């Protein structure tokens, strides 16, 4: 085909158009007074290295996730942020050839220690995925699935379902069709159902892997509101490609980038900067962070 039209405009560097300033501005709603580092981290990654076979995917990540805080992991594609997220509840165990070195602690306990059951880890650390993935069952059965499979002691399942759906701000929309298929819901509703499904098992930490990337802006904003509500009860760690989203919801932000290996050219992800969201966006310590958030790279 002859030259396609250039429809993508590449942003110039610098902050001539107030792009970075707007990030700091949208953060104000989520902003709280927090110490520089989480005082009592719920989870910590200590010298975390991840390999897929011979491929070194993530290099020496040190992170701590504070209680009732939202931590955003941002960075360009292939920088290992999703890999890090999946290590936090041992979902990477399911990938053939994946190997984790270093420690991931949950309340001080290494979840990769010998004898730790990944099934138990996942009941405490829930996960919401990029694409809404309700089960091909009724709305009710979707929520009841977690408590049923984990053998949770439940007085009345109806109450558990209602509480979870209320928690995910979905109850009013679905209370009359609990027995209908979850596939009848819109994309945004499905994603909130997935969040409800996760909180029904009463986890401590909720991991979210780009939860809004398949949703329209209105559904996205509802999920973001929900995250700010859930922050009161849960610790949330979210991977996002959307810097605006990180700015809008997160308390702390970790910026990752990918460094090509000199000999093989394989890109290894590494943590560049971890800071309060406000500081990271308004006054980054690292040149690479500044380049990324101002749109000069990535």
């Amino acid at each position, binding site marked *: 085909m002859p030259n396609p*039209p250039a429809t993508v405009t590449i942003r110039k560097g610098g902050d001539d158009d107030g792009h970075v300033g707007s990030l700091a501005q949208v953060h104000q709603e989520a902003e709280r007074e927090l110490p520089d580092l989480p005082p009592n981290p719920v989870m910590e990654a200590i010298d975390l290295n991840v390999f897929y076979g011979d491929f070194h995917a993530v290099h020496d990540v040190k992170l701590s996730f504070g209680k009732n805080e939202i931590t955003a992991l941002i960075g360009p594609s292939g920088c290992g942020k999703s890999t890090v997220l999946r290590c936090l509840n041992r979902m990477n165990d399911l990938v053939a050839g994946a190997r984790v070195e270093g420690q991931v602690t949950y309340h001080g306990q290494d979840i990769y220690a010998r004898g730790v059951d990944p099934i138990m880890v996942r009941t405490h650390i829930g996960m919401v995925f990029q694409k809404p*993935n309700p*089960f091909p069952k009724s709305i009710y059965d979707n929520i009841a*699935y977690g408590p049923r499979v984990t053998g949770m002691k439940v007085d009345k399942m109806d109450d558990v379902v209602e509480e979870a759906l209320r928690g995910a701000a979905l109850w009013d929309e679905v209370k009359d069709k609990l027995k209908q298929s979850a596939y009848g819901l819109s994309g945004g509703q499905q994603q909130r159902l997935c969040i409800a499904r996760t909180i029904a098992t009463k986890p401590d930490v909720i991991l979210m892997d780009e939860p809004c990337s398949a949703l329209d802006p209105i559904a996205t904003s509802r999920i973001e509101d929900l995250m700010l509500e859930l922050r009161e009860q849960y610790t949330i760690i979210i991977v996002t490609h959307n810097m605006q989203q990180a700015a809008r919801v997160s308390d702390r932000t970790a910026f990752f980038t990918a460094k090509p290996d000199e000999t093989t050219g394989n890109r290894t992800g590494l943590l560049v900067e971890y800071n309060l969201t406000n500081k990271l966006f308004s006054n980054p310590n690292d040149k690479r962070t500044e380049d990324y958030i101002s749109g000069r790279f990535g």
Partner: protein
Amino acid sequence: MSAATVAARETTAHTIATGKSRDRTPGSLIFLIALWLSLFFGIAVLTVLLVDTAIKGLPRMDGNLLTEYDSTLFPEKHGFRAGILGSIWLMLGTALFTVPLGIAAATYLEEFADNKKWYNRIIEINIQNLAAVPAIVYGILALGVMGLFGLADGLVIGGILALSLLTLPIIIITTREALRAVPSEIRQGSLALGATVWQTTWRNSLPSAVPGIATGTILGLSRAIGEAAPLVMVGIFVSVRFDPASLTDMASALPIQIYGLASNSQEAYQQAANAAIIVLLLMVLGLNALAIFIRNKFQRSW
């Protein structure tokens, strides 16, 4: 204005000016006709076959055909009772044997096996190959197994063994396809809630795969019911004059009886054979209809 826009506008202008779509050039028309002919050929052969059988066989579609045993003295009273009952025995036995075994094997291979391990790879390749093995080879194998246990020729159990060997690879392969069609996001979602692999398989993957499994299973069985070659090998009889009542009874089967009559030159027996073919076709079509019904009833989209 981009090149694509220009091209689109030109096409539109051309269509409006001439009233002709570029989809109707001589080349594309010839191609379309070729496609139609290919389709027509397949359907024509099938129709001729069916109509021919129907014309020859319909006069004998009577009660005797279903209720009487075969008769060498009165061709007009020749019936296929033993064959029909034998085929039903064989089919039910094969289903009882292969469905649980096939689904279990496929579930292991798809959900639990580490397909990087050499032994799992060998099993996989072998199953793929087994589906392409000529049916008669399974007959020889079943005959060998029967001989090993000192069992006589022509027993129901021998037929079931031969047809099961034939059907098992088909059921395993279609069940694996059905399980593979369940999106991995569903499994991950289940595992992320703290479910075990076993719970995920039992509560999510298998129920979601039911339509595919049922369809594949029934199609496999309907292929088995029409097979004659492996049954000839295990010595299933052309003529039996009693109803099979247990696995170790001697039995006949419909395809074998049809095969037995094919060499008989009497007009009345040819008629009876054609009528039996209609019965066999109806049984196969009934099974296929059941498969379609199940597929449509439980169909879901992700």
